[in-house]
């Protein structure tokens, strides 16, 4: 497992045309391809590292997936696992040397969700409806990238608070809600004119 393709891609992307976006289009496409190759290679290293770090009880090593298309609201593990009745394990790694308290968001297709930390304590979470324009962007780009629309339908963004130690990771488990515990649904309203 190496990260040499990523190193090469990042080195090439320091050219002044790459930084400013003044390269020719076929060069932009080449940068994209090299960065993608680097990402795919590094993803395996990350998955292997996290698997090694989280395997503290001598169980079979867990295989981790990432969501490189989260920026277009596409994340198959979070969309499909929850709807199949399984729980989703989310590992959050902090590459900086200080503690981070942030809110992360993942797309989900169900509306009753509970988030727990590694000790099983419930973590505050919030569901935000996915807007039509986000869905439109998702569908347009999935057609371009995958050649077909997504098999799943997402309804909400699940937001929850994470706390991650310096240069370390935290683990959260997202499950379909049981009685008495669920995410708070956002109150949504539209203002148009003076109404």
């Amino acid at each position, binding site marked *: 497992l190496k990260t040499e393709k990523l190193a090469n891609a990042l080195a090439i992307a320091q050219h002044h*045309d790459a930084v400013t976006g*003044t*390269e*020719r*289009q076929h060069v932009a496409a080449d940068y994209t391809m090299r960065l993608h190759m680097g990402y795919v290679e590094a993803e395996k290293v990350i998955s292997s590292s*996290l698997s090694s770090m*989280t395997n503290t*009880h001598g*169980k079979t090593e*867990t295989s*981790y*997936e*990432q*969501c490189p298309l989260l920026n277009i609201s596409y994340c198959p*593990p*979070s969309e499909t*696992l929850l709807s199949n009745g*399984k*729980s*989703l*394990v*989310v590992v*959050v*790694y*902090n*590459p900086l040397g*200080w503690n*981070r*308290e*942030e*809110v*992360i968001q*993942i797309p989900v297709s169900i509306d009753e969700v509970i988030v727990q930390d590694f000790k099983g304590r419930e973590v*505050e*979470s*919030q569901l*935000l*409806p996915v*807007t039509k324009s986000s869905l439109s*962007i998702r569908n*347009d*780009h999935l*057609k*371009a990238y995958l*050649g077909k629309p997504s098999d799943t339908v997402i309804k909400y963004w699940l*937001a929850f*608070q*994470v706390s*991650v130690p310096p240069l370390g990771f935290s683990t959260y*488990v997202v499950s379909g809600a049981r009685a008495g515990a669920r995410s*708070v649904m*956002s*109150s*949504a*309203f*539209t*203002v*148009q*004119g*003076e109404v």
Partner: protein
Amino acid sequence: NSTVEIGEGNLKLLYSVDGGKLSQYINRRNSVSAVVEQSYSYYTGFSGTDEDPQASGAYVFRSNGSFSIKSEGKDSLTVMKGPLLDEVHQHPTSWIHQITRVYKGKEHAEIEFTIGPIPIDDGAGKEIVTQIKTTMNTNGTFYTDSNGRDFIKRIRDHRADWDLEVSQAIAGNYYPINVGVYVEDGKKELSVLVDRAIGGSSIMDGQIELMLHRRLLHDDSRGVGEVLNETVCAFDDCKGLVIKGKYFIRIDPIGEGAKWRRSVGQEIYSPLILAFAEQDGDDWM
């Protein structure tokens, strides 16, 4: 009843109901309050003439007029409120979508923009900018980072070490921004952090502008040999590029913004890494 307030923590943003625009920034912890507007506009690219042949292109920024982007149809905003964050969704045109987020535990506003495909059917290349306006009297001075290092003082229409003759009122005051830009008026400082290398400036006192996307129709004949008009194709259907990113706004009492710019500037370029796995029932890892 004339405003909508978002933010469950110290930071509150007020939007005017009539027009759906951001109108005020309030931080209850440090008593900072400021009138703030945020809008979009574009510069059309200069196409070159016999007398003045240098066209606006990938390398050369020569604007040929500035046009504000007015909302298509009725102004509207959709607000989502909850215990962790509030969101404001705005759609000023069919090709600009914006989500403003205020997190309960943070004292900055996060603005996520989705822009494109930039329309060119009117025959004009466009460079899209967003403007954040305040009433601060900043005396022509602003500060931009130097390729991620120190923030350097910039004075509009002025260079410290030579007599500048301004021939491009906008481009002559544009600077590269990798981490952020800020202005101050002796009492407050308005800081903006970015998630990518972009161009930006403070063209008017109290204002910061960021160039977020560009689509041009002329080669500037400075070497690239191609028009900056990138497209994405699916099934032989090619459209102009759609870009998506974030920038972050905060107003501090004078002297208190540097810590935020340094720490959050680092966090923006070192995001938390997420990895996912499945788990059966209560089989805890």
